C-alpha cells in the first residue's frame, strides 16, 4: 500500500515538474508547427497549444477560468475592448516587446486598441464568400446567396462567428455591420433563421473550407487566407467579396490577466514580431502580416496578390467590425435565438 502511494506520488510529481510551460489559446490551424517548435527549442520551454473554432467559445472558456490558465489568447479585434473591460486580459508592458517597432505605422495605433495597449496584431484579412465555380449556374457576388431563397446556388454553410454572420445579414439589408438598432437586428435575425434552415447549418472556418474541398458544400462563408490555402489544392474554388461589402479584420495576441508565465509570454509576443518569423507565419497562412519588417521575407506572390493585400477600391467596400460596448448583450441574445430556432 505504501509503495503504491509513493509510486503514484512520484508519477504525479513527475507530471507536474515538466519544464516551463507556455499556454496558448489560438484559432485552429493558424500557425505553422515549425514556428512553435523553433520557439520551444530557443527558450527550452514546452508550448501547450489549445485551439478554438469560434471566438465566442474562446470568451466562454476564458470566463470559466481560462483567464488564469492560459498565458496568451488570440481574439479578433472587436473583442479586445470587451475582454479588457471584463478583466480577462492585461495591459502590456511595451518595454518588454521591443519588436513592436517592426509593425507598419497604421498598426502602431489601431482603432480597436489605441496604442496597442492590450494586444499585439498578428494577422489581418478579409471575410467573404467562397464557392465552387463549376457547380454554380452563375458566379456568386452577393450575400443573397445565403439570405435570398431566389439566389440559392447550392448547399451552403454559414460561418459560426456571431459578429461576422450577423454582420453579413446586416450588410445584405443595407445596414452597417456595427448597427445596434434592435429593429434592424431583429430583421437580420429572421434572415439568419431562414438561411440556417435552407442551408447545411453552421461551421467554423476550418470545417467550412474542408467541406467545400470535399464537395460536401458548394458555397461557404469563410475567411480569405483559409480559402487561399485550399485554392492551392483545387483551383475550382473562387473567393469573392460580395457587392454589399464584407469585413476586414485583425486578429491580435493578448495576454490573459492571470497568465501563469508572463515572462515567457512576453518573449513569445516579441518572437512573433521578428521579421522572418512573421513572414513564415503569413507564408503558411496566406494572410497579410502587420509586420512591415517582414516584407523582404514574404513570398512574392503573396505580396503581389490583390486578394491578400486588397487595393484601395476594394478596401472601400470593407468594414471593420467594431466593439459595440453594452449592446453586445443584444447581439448575444439574437445569436442564441438563431441557434435555438
Amino acid at each position, binding site marked *: 500500500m505504501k509503495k503504491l502511494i509513493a509510486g503514484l506520488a512520484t508519477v504525479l510529481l513527475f507530471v507536474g515538474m515538466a519544464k516551463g510551460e507556455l499556454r496558448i489559446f489560438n484559432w485552429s490551424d493558424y500557425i505553422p508547427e515549425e514556428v512553435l517548435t523553433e520557439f520551444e527549442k530557443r527558450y527550452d520551454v514546452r508550448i501547450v497549444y489549445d485551439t478554438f473554432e469560434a471566438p*465566442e*467559445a474562446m470568451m*466562454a472558456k476564458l470566463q*470559466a477560468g481560462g483567464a488564469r490558465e492560459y498565458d496568451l489568447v488570440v481574439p479578433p479585434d472587436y473583442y479586445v475592448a470587451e475582454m479588457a473591460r471584463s478583466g480577462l486580459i492585461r495591459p502590456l508592458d511595451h518595454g518588454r516587446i521591443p519588436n513592436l517597432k517592426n509593425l507598419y505605422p497604421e498598426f502602431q495605433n489601431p482603432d480597436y486598441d489605441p496604442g496597442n495597449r492590450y494586444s499585439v496584431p498578428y494577422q489581418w484579412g478579409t471575410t467573404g464568400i467562397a464557392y465552387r465555380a463549376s457547380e454554380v449556374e452563375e458566379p456568386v457576388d452577393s450575400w443573397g446567396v445565403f439570405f435570398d431563397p431566389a439566389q440559392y446556388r447550392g448547399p451552403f454553410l454559414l460561418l459560426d462567428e456571431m459578429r461576422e454572420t450577423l454582420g453579413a445579414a446586416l450588410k445584405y439589408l443595407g445596414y452597417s455591420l456595427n448597427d445596434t438598432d434592435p429593429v434592424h437586428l431583429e430583421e437580420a435575425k429572421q434572415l439568419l433563421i431562414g438561411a440556417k434552415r435552407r442551408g447545411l*447549418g*453552421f461551421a467554423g472556418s476550418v470545417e467550412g473550407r474542408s467541406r467545400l474541398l470535399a*464537395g460536401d458544400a458548394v458555397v461557404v462563408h469563410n475567411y480569405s487566407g483559409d480559402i487561399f490555402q485550399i485554392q492551392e489544392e483545387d483551383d475550382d474554388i473562387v473567393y469573392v467579396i460580395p457587392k454589399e461589402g464584407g469585413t476586414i479584420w485583425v486578429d491580435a495576441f493578448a495576454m490573459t490577466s492571470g497568465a501563469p508565465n508572463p515572462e515567457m509570454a512576453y518573449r513569445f509576443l516579441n518572437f512573433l514580431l521578428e521579421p522572418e518569423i512573421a513572414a513564415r507565419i503569413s507564408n503558411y497562412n496566406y494572410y497579410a502580416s502587420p509586420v512591415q519588417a517582414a516584407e523582404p521575407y514574404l513570398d512574392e506572390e503573396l505580396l503581389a496578390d490583390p486578394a491578400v493585400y486588397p487595393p484601395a477600391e476594394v478596401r472601400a467596400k470593407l468594414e471593420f467590425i467594431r466593439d459595440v460596448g453594452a449592446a453586445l448583450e443584444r447581439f448575444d441574445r439574437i445569436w*442564441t435565438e438563431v*441557434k*435555438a430556432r
Partner: protein
Amino acid sequence: MNRRASWKQLVATVAPGALWLVVFTLVPTLLIFYTSLLQRDPHGWLTGPLTLENYLRFLGLSAEGFDPLYLNILGRSLLLGLVTTVATVVLGYPFAFFIAGSARKNLLLLLVVLPFWTNFLIRVYAWIVIFQRKGVLNVFLDRFGLDPVLLYPSWSAVYVGTVYTYLPFLILPLYASVEKIDWSLLEAAYDLGASRFWGFVHAVLPQTLPGLVAGVLLVFVPAVGTFVISDLLGAGKAVLVGNVIQQQFGASRDWAFGSAAAFVLMAVVLAGLWLYARWTGERGMEDLV
C-alpha cells in the same frame, strides 16, 4: 443482518465516499439551482438579484406573449428519447433471443460488446461519412442509378445516430434477463393450451422485464440529454435541450439560463427515476448496473 454502525466504522467506510458525493454531486446540483435564479450580467458573468426570469424564459412566458421555443425543444428531446427507445427495443429484443438461442453465444456477445466499448464519438462521426453529400450512401445509390439523398445534416441522421449509439445499451441488460429465462414456464403454458403468442406473452415476457426496463432507462435518459449526436449529425439544425444547455455555457455565455434549462432537464429525468424506483424497489436499481 445490518447492524447499527459505530462512529469509527462509519468514518472508515462510508464517510470518504459520502463526503465525495456530497461535495462533487450534491453541491454542484444545488449550485445549478442557485445559478438558475441569477441573471446574466453584460459581460457574460452572473449577477443578482434572484429571479425566476430564466424559468419563465424557458417556459416561453414573457411580456410579448407566449413563445414555445424552448418547450418545443424539450418536447423534441423527449420525442427523440421515446422514438429511440422504441426503435432499440424493436431491434434489440429479438436480438437478445437470437443470442440466447445460438450455439455461439460468447462470440455474439463479444460482437455486441465491441461497439459498446468503442468510443462513442467514433461511432457517431462514422455516420457523417456515410450520410454526407458524397458519402458512402450516395456513392452506393449512384451505382444503382438512384438520386442522391441529403441526409447530413438532418434529423434523420440524428435519429439513426442515437439508435445506433444506444442499441448495445439495451441489448446487454436485456440479455442478462433473457439468459436467465426459465423456459419450463413456457412449456407449462403450452401444456395448458396457450397459443405460441400468448404463451410467450404470459410466460416469457414478464421474465425479461427487469432487464428490459433497465435497458430502456439506459437508452431513454442519455438520448433525451444528448448534445453530441445532434451537434455532429444535425450540425446546428437539430437543436435539443442538451444543445441549448451546452450553448449557454459556451458561446452564449448565459450560465443562468443554461442552469435553468439543465435544472428542468434534470427534474424531468429524476421524476422518471423516482417513479421507476417506487415501482421496482431497491433491487430494481441494481439491475441498472
